[in-house]
């Protein structure tokens, strides 16, 4: 008996390897270095966007973390953490994204500083990953791509360090194996545009209480000022979800281009004191009902029918009467009606979520006649209002050519005016004058209002339509989600030859990329996707065929985008800008349907290709390892490898026969006989004078040698081999 003596090593209180003593402590320290580097990387990618206080506090936390790693003190971390957090929060708002990020940085740094166990390091690592991820939201670009790559590498190195330095090659191998899988997941995970709230609502999940929706909504109304839409466009309140059907022939297939989705709401006829108002008396239900139009008459309003679009609507409560439909309504939901100016209205205010099937005409020309009353209403302007605009209208008006006048008005607004969502109501007596001649920057409401006044002053009947435009198309679905921020206003002008024609002067100017650049770092950007059809439909002067009034400027805009994409690197096109649309393109290129099923098919094919490539590589590696060996030697190697998988490893100095006997004992009495019988076969082939080895039989035999079961044929083949063995 050996007695441990006084000189035996004393371990750490926490029990040596199982606790933070000895080699465990060393590994913890080794892992702290890459973890600290990851945290510093995470802080670095965020600190450019933090205020000075946040940066100073995060750096102080990192410094304390390094000191604590060097010389641990249990009480330091919570005390310093509390002080730093208090210092930070005194400088910033509690709920700001900056505060949250900085607090994650502080907590992670201090956690690393007091790390005593691997789980502490793991928490700090996750903190570092989160910081990097949050940093990526600020400004995606080449630098951030590098940060992501660095974070992945540091994560792997830190995890390997926790397991011991000798595991680093294996960890890097694991990283290399993970990269193709990452690529597959990246490319084929269905992308859904829009935030989680949008997704949840589109899927019908009751994540937000409806009363909150009501509270947050600015009710759309029969009255509108120039800047009101811009104010409304700042909120995230839910408005509607439209689920489009696929169709064929005369039915529109799927979701129309988002830019063409004008969700029609109140129609405003009267311009008075800088405000646009609906028809008089429409607050009363009786007056509204008198102004409705029957379905047959509604169809008569169509000059030229386009395609029908079928969709299911879900409207969230907004306490007013309007329902919404895009294009020209072709059906009327229950308990609702369509007015003479094609407003879809409910009998009662919408106080709860409404679902209704709907269909609309897309690409139509509508409006056959304009009554004298409506013409007068659509031309009315207060006598003394907007004098400078009136003078301008007289300048641009083309006598006897309403279309040329309309085009001149659009061109006027395109040139020299800027688009900005944050511009509010100009106020004052003549807001359109102020906008056109002084401010010159505005949102949809400003442009539509100015255009309508300009047209009226030029003698062209015009009215304002309030509602929503576009929305968020949930990728790989047929759903479009519209929020309050999609609020929009456009103009309709009356041309005798074509009826009411929609004119959207702000459309060209609303460059989504410019909008995106001004959004805060958390990228709260809903996909204001531009349509694929840039033309604004205004009819040609001489005939019924529509002319694309603004095609020139729009194509220029799109060409600019294409040029941008052409200049971008592959990583920008296939990584940073990869989205649902590109996935659909990818599926279409593979002649697959744009659906989840198509993605799964491609992902499976890619995974199979990868697996096949891996098998080829393994086969080549095996061939390189066994080339130059005789068939019997190769067979021997494979047999040993197969037995090793079951735990039977041939010792270095162990003879083949004795190894097979030992293996036979390990697997059971019957197979012991069988495996021992292989010995003479191999010995004869390896050391015999002929070197003959019955490869085919041996291969069949080898297939039956596994850990779990042995085919009964095994024994017959074995006996056959044994009977026909070469004589040594």
């Amino acid at each position, binding site marked *: 008996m050996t007695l*441990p003596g006084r000189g035996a090593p004393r371990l750490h209180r926490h029990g040596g*390897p199982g606790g933070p003593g000895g080699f465990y402590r060393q590994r913890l320290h080794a892992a702290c270095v890459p973890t600290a580097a990851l945290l510093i990387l995470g802080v670095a990618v965020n600190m450019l966007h933090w205020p000075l206080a946040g940066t100073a506090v995060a750096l102080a936390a990192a410094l304390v973390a390094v000191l604590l790693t060097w010389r641990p003190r249990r009480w330091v971390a919570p005390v310093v953490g509390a002080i730093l957090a208090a210092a930070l929060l005194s400088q910033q708002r509690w709920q700001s994204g900056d505060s949250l990020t900085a607090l994650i940085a502080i907590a992670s740094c201090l956690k690393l500083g007091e790390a005593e166990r691997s789980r502490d390091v793991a928490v700090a690592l996750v903190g570092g*990953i989160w910081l990097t991820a949050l940093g990526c939201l600020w400004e995606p670009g080449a630098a951030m791509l590098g940060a992501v790559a660095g974070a992945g590498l540091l*994560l792997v190195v830190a995890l390997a360090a926790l397991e011991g330095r000798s*595991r680093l090659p294996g960890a890097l191998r694991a990283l290399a194996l993970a990269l193709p899988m990452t690529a597959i997941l*990246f490319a084929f995970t269905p992308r859904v545009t829009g935030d*989680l709230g949008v997704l949840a609502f589109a899927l019908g999940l009751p994540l937000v209480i409806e009363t909150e929706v009501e509270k947050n909504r600015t009710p759309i109304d029969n009255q509108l000022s120039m800047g009101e839409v811009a104010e409304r466009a700042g909120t995230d309140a839910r408005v509607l979800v439209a689920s489009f059907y696929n169709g064929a022939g005369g039915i529109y297939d799927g979701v129309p281009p988002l830019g063409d989705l004008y969700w029609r709401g109140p129609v405003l006829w009267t311009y008075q004191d800088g405000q646009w108002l609906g028809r008089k008396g429409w607050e009363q239900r009786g007056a509204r009902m008198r102004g409705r139009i029957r379905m047959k008459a509604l169809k008569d309003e169509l000059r030229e029918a386009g395609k029908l679009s079928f969709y299911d609507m879900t409207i969230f409560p907004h306490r007013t009467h309007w329902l919404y439909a895009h294009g020209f309504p072709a059906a009327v939901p229950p308990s609702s009606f369509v007015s003479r100016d094609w407003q879809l209205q409910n009998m009662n205010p919408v106080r709860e979520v409404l679902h209704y099937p709907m269909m609309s005409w897309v690409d139509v020309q509508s409006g056959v006649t304009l009554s004298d009353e409506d013409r007068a209403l659509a031309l009315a302007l207060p006598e003394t209002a907007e004098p400078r605009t009136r003078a301008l209208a007289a300048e641009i008006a083309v006598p006897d050519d309403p279309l040329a006048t309309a085009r001149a008005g659009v061109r006027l607004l395109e040139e020299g005016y800027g688009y900005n969502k944050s511009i509010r109501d100009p106020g004052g007596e003549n807001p359109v004058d102020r906008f056109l001649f002084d401010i010159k920057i505005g949102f949809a409401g400003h442009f539509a209002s100015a255009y309508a006044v300009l047209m009226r002053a030029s003698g062209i009947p015009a009215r304002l339509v309030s509602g929503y435009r576009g929305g968020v198309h949930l990728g790989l679905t047929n759903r479009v989600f519209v929020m309050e921020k999609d609020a929009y206003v456009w103009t309709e002008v009356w041309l005798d030859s074509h009826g009411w024609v929609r004119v959207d002067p702000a459309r060209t100017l609303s460059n989504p990329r410019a909008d995106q650049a001004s959004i805060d770092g958390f990228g709260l950007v809903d996909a204001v996707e531009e349509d694929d059809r840039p033309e604004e439909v205004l009819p040609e002067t001489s005939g019924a065929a529509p002319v694309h009034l603004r095609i020139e400027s729009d194509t220029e805009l799109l060409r600019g985008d294409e040029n941008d994409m052409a200049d971008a690197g592959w990583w920008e096109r296939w990584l940073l800008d990869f989205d649902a649309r590109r996935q659909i393109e990818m599926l279409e290129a593979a002649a697959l349907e744009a659906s989840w099923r198509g993605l799964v098919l491609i992902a499976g094919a890619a995974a199979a290709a990868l697996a096949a490539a891996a098998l080829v590589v393994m086969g080549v590696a095996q061939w390189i390892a066994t080339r130059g060996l005789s068939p019997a030697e190769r067979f021997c190697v494979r047999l040993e490898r197969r037995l090793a998988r079951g735990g039977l490893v041939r010792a270095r100095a162990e003879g083949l026969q004795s190894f097979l006997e030992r293996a036979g004992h390990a697997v059971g009495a019957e197979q012991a006989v069988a495996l021992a019988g292989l010995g003479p076969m191999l010995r004869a082939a390896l050391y015999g004078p002929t070197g003959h080895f019955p490869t085919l039989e041996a291969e069949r035999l080898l297939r039956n040698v596994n850990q779990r079961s042995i085919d009964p044929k095994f024994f017959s083949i074995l006996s056959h081999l044994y009977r026909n063995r070469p004589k040594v």
Partner: protein
Amino acid sequence: MSMPGTSAGLRRAPTPQGWALLMAAPALFLLAVNYSSNLVFTLSFLVLSLMINAGIATWRGLDGIEGNLAPVAPAFAGEPLTLTARLSGPATRRWAVRLRALGRSGPPAGEAPDARLDLCTAGRGPLALGIPELETRDALGLFRVRRALGNHSDDAGIEAMIWPAPDWTAPAEGVETGLSGGRAWNRDEIAGLRPWRHGDTPVDMAWRATMRRGEPIVRDYEAGHARGARLFSWSGVAGAGPEAGLSRLSAGVISANRQGLAAGLDLPGLRIDPAEGEAQLGLCLDALARHGGRTGRLA
């Protein structure tokens, strides 16, 4: 038919690091969805892929690995209790295998043929180690797989003995109970020199021989002398307090054994007659460890 090392009873689960990343990956994914950030998608998929790879790598991590646990030698309180398992199986899997008991894992076996676990002991008494397990992890340590060592399905596990730490500063003086043969041992007669052993006092150091040989050498009074018998009595150390008394008795018994004397114990309710040999020493130390019905503790 099942092969050794591939039988059921494997327990697979994420490690703390694995759990941390397992929770982080879906959270990152939701963040990416919420903000439509491709870089965050990349990060979340990378973490997820690492997890999947780790899970696949760990799934068969113990296949073919067998371990035979060596008998657990007793340890003195405050010193490591060492568990050793001889491993067999594919070397590519064997080197990452650890031994695990009482919720603590040893280092990976590496190229050594054994997996080893040192447990730091704190209090004397029998220590139930449960059923030790073999454990292995993937290279990133995100998943682990465990299997009980041997066939312990019906057992309550193994037990190790933690002896009282000997107090060499004041070893108990045993009572001489008579000669076991030959003439009486005289400490003044030096029989020769021998290497230093635990329990030898500095007074016995032969410094000149030590310097000459380069290792500690002490004077040997025992060789060729007749053996005496000593009985170490609880009453002799009662004034020192129970644990300190046991430590003194432990030191006394060990010292007597090393001097070749027969040693016995006289504890309350237990008497062990003096005898020589390692078995007698183990018996005495076991009795001291079990005194008062205490169970062993780890630090």
